[in-house]
């Protein structure tokens, strides 16, 4: 097992290296380049531009710049934001807790509900409830998250005033858990909806595969209670393929968070990224994209490892 984890990690290194190379050269090959936003500023002179180029090390060769950048990136140094003159990685890390709060709460809701809905759907296959869940989940993964967010915002915040229209907490107020939760509910549910729609389907089909197996019939024949058969005997085995999907979806949630944060003015990493896009703040963009790529690669490995831990039939040698 340990050997397998190490080997998977080793395999990830070239992938991460290729990604970094791709992103770095892609950016520098583009028209405008990293200095696009200075070029169009009023009153800027050629000499000043040249000075900025030298300050940021942009006058050196691309390979030199890349090696320099990579060496620093490995140590978590992504340079300074062009706009705020602060360390880019620091800016990102500062925003990370807000994003994680949104993502983790969404993830928990998703996992919990998808098991409940998926198992119900499978056990009561072709019942009214099953059809209803099927229809709603079809809606779920056909609905653009940002539109759902916009609709929810218009209905519950703008018109009904049930929930705040954005932000993480009431401005100026002292910290209170109730207030935080009140702000969290809408963005959390919007973010959870898409993954919930797809994951409850996975749980359902995985349960359906398991439920007709011989050992389930044996368990029933032995007189094991139905609840125990479903939740212990069947679900445990149905978990296997689902866990992989869920871990991968957790990484995907970052993309959903980007959209949700923008709509609900959530001060997280996604909003930072959009701001950086609108301001061409390359160091921040690079920090965020590099960080997320590493997260996704690690999530892949985690999914593989979990699969092995949960399924004793799989031997890693």
């Amino acid at each position: 097992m340990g050997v397998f984890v190490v080997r998977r990690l080793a395999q990830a290194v070239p992938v991460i290296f290729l990604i970094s190379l791709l992103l770095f050269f892609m950016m520098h090959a583009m028209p405008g380049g990293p200095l696009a936003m200075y070029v169009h500023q009023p009153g800027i002179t050629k000499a000043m531009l040249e000075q900025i180029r030298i300050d940021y090390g942009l006058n050196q060769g691309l390979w030199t710049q890349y090696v320099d950048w990579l060496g620093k990136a490995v140590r978590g140094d992504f340079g300074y934001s062009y706009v705020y003159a602060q360390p880019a990685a620091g800016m990102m890390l500062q925003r990370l807790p807000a994003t994680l709060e949104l993502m983790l709460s969404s993830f928990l809701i998703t996992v919990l509900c998808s098991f409940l809905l998926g198992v119900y759907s499978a056990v009561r296959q072709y019942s009214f409830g099953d059809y209803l869940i099927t229809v709603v989940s079809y809606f779920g993964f056909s609905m653009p998250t940002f539109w759902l967010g916009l609709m929810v915002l218009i209905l519950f915040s703008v018109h009904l005033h049930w929930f705040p229209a954005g932000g993480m907490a009431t401005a100026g107020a002292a910290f209170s858990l109730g207030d935080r939760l009140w702000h969290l509910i809408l963005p959390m549910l919007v973010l959870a909806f898409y993954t919930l729609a797809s994951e409850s389907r996975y749980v359902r089909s995985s349960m359906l595969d398991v439920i007709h197996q011989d050992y389930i019939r044996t368990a029933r024949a032995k007189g094991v209670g139905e609840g125990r058969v479903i939740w212990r005997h069947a679900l445990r085995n149905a978990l296997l393929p689902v866990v992989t999907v869920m871990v991968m979806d957790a990484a995907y949630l970052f993309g959903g968070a980007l959209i949700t944060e923008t709509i609900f003015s959530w001060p997280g990493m996604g909003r930072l990224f959009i701001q950086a896009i609108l301001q061409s703040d390359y160091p921040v963009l690079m920090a965020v994209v590099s960080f997320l790529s590493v997260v996704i690669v690690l999530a892949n490995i985690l999914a593989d490892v979990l699969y092995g831990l949960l399924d004793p039939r799989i031997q890693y040698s």
Partner: protein
Amino acid sequence: MSLMPRREAPLHRPQAEPRFESYAHLVWRRFLRHRVAVAAAVVLLLIMLAAILAPWVSPYQLGQPDLAAMLAPPSLHHPMGTDDLGIDLFTEVLFGGRVSLSIGVFAALVAVVVGGAIGSISGYFGSLVDALLMRITDVGLSVPLLFVVLLLSLLIGPTPVSIVTIIGLTSWMYPARIVRSQFLTLKKRDFVEAARAVGMPSTRIILREIFPNAMAPLIVNATLLVGQAIILESVMSFLGAGLTPPNISWGYLLNQAQSFTTSAPWLAIFPGLMIFLVVLAVNLVGDGLRDALDPTSSQRSH
């Protein structure tokens, strides 16, 4: 006694000979059996038709404000209401459909062509080529899609062509994997061996012998990609990193609607509803196609 002639009659009818149904006909028949998918296909066709015919069927001219009705709610005159300049939203939605739908279709096409090519080469030649191409596919799958797409749009500059290219070139990984796995099984079949034995060149074997047999799952995936591409484009435009006028897409209309969530919520409702409808229809058609194209599936197997 009287049964005799009746029993004999069918034997002499020409229909008694075995009839072979063409694959296309079989697929068509199986698709028609899938009622929801057929309904979805009809809705999709109607929306596409309305978008194509936008200049002729739209009630107003694009960009011609109705100064008597600014931010007017939906009514008989303006079925979807008007925006802050008094421009009819229904007209904008029809024209927006041209942009959104064509970007969805062309981006999916790019993804399928690139993915198909990479998957075919990888699966057919195997070994080192395969290892290299699959690592590249891994890289593609490990990149945070939405973030990279936004970044690329910022860098290249959003035009319809660049958006199609960006979405297409970031969505080819699944088609590639699907085609590759098809090739891995198909290339060992006898008809491929036979083609090789008579000295057919590799390109011809890939394109003429194997690829047509590997198409079915690719077509299903392509359908789903159209929906994903439409959503991706609308997200880009919504976040302000996508198309801008004169190329109004449904996403751009939603971006504009953000300033009027209190005064004119209909501006946010209808363009999004169109995206939702189209993507839902595309997904349902894709499901119907999956069942129709798969010779092993009996009935709906969800």
